[in-house]
């Protein structure tokens, strides 16, 4: 049995215990499942450092080799170490740490996603044309929902929010549910392929 088989079996055993812990009232399986979950929290906590180590490695090499735009890498590595050291000493609830969080991280994150309002505006003007029945239905539905969300929509037509609520609660709900059931069966299929050892994917998360 080589290394690859052992890893597949390890993943399968852990996965099956977690599944069984939900469906069977066998005390031993439930406590093992709970212990595995607490292990998962600890491993995931350690995994959080990977991004910082990876970034430091890439950007320190870029600085030492004087690659193009290495000055930006100095800023990246600098802020990373300063904020991390403050965080370790002052803790993440501390005032000094909070200064960096509230005045650098939060405004930057907010502006990064606020830029999307610009892209939506320029795409709405230049690219969102009703060339097909699909895009025509989509643009009409989007317009009604936008008018339903904004007070001016209600000023134009009194029942606008109700139409928007109907779109959200009937067609949108039905379509999202159909997609959810299909995607759910797909997620189970992915899980089975991983447990069978014929799929290498791993499981994580992120921002929409």
């Amino acid at each position, binding site marked *: 049995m080589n290394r690859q088989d052992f890893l597949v079996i390890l993943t399968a055993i852990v996965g099956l215990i977690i599944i069984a812990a939900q469906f069977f009232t066998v005390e031993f399986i439930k406590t093992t499942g709970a212990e595995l979950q607490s292990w998962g929290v600890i491993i995931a906590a350690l995994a959080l450092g990977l991004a910082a180590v990876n970034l430091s490695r890439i950007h320190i090499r870029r600085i030492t080799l004087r690659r193009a735009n290495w000055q930006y890498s100095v800023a990246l590595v600098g802020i990373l170490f300063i904020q991390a050291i403050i965080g370790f000493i002052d803790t993440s609830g501390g005032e000094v740490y909070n200064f960096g969080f509230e005045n650098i991280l939060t405004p930057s994150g907010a502006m990064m*996603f606020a830029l999307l309002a610009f892209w939506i505006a320029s795409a709405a003007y230049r690219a969102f044309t009703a060339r097909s029945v699909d895009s025509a239905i989509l643009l009409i539905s989007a317009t009604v929902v936008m008018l339903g969300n904004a007070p001016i929509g209600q000023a134009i037509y009194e029942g606008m929010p109700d139409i928007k609520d109907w779109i959200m609660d009937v067609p949108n709900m039905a379509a999202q549910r159909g997609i959810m059931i299909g995607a759910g069966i797909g997620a189970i299929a992915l899980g089975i392929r991983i447990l069978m050892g014929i799929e290498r994917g791993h499981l994580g998360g992120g921002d929409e």
Partner: protein
Amino acid sequence: MMSKIRNIDRRIIYAILLVSLAFPIFAPPGLPFAVGNPARNAYAAIDALEPGSLVVLSFDYAPTSADEINPQAMAVMRHLFEQKRGVRVVTLGFWPSGPIFAEINFRALEAEGVTDGLVYGEDYANFGYIAGAENAMAALATDPTDAFRRDREGNRTADLPIMQGVATGSDIDLLVHFGSGTPGVPEYIRQLVDPYGVPMVAGLAAVSVAGSIPYYQAGQVIGYFNGLRGAAEYEQLYGVAGPGTSAMDSFSFGHLTIIAFVLIGNITYFLDPDRKKRK
């Protein structure tokens, strides 16, 4: 001519949008807006909390959505601390920025004196962040004080009076989840709401709302806030204007601008004589 209009510099488009969002701040027309059922149901669920019941405020968003969701969290915390004294409030998070936003919102209310008289560890507590996304939520559901061993102050959570009698997730009387992605509503429903029967209210970034409606219609989510609009509706129900309400007028003109862009874009596209025939 048509294609000239279509290909105006995109920076002009951005400038027009900026102006449409900015000028209502100077001269707000204060247009009225209706409160939807989702926000009304969420408000009712919070208002119905009995003294001694345990509500968990779960902060699961990043700085990228803070401007949408902080106003919701502020409105809910104000409601709990002003009118629902005696209800045990625990804040925690499954996104690294979660507990920091819980503290920022708490400090803002503290400055207004809303939190005077609250005893840490009895009336409220902040349990911080644990890693692992859906797995961390499952750990909370299995045993909250084992998942969150220490709170942000360093106390053992099991020793805090606020957690007496709380053995599993089913001892949570209401979950209010503020979220903008993954892990979020689906993960909470899979690991806590369905298996342990915990009623859930969701304060969502607008982009996450459409995908969560099936859970709302199935009763797994009993109420939700639709982004900054949801915050404004909550502020109106509670009677204290906040950042949500003050953004409504900018919404109106911003949305009209986007709709106008779509209309102009389509008109010039279909009237453009040399529209390249694709097929």
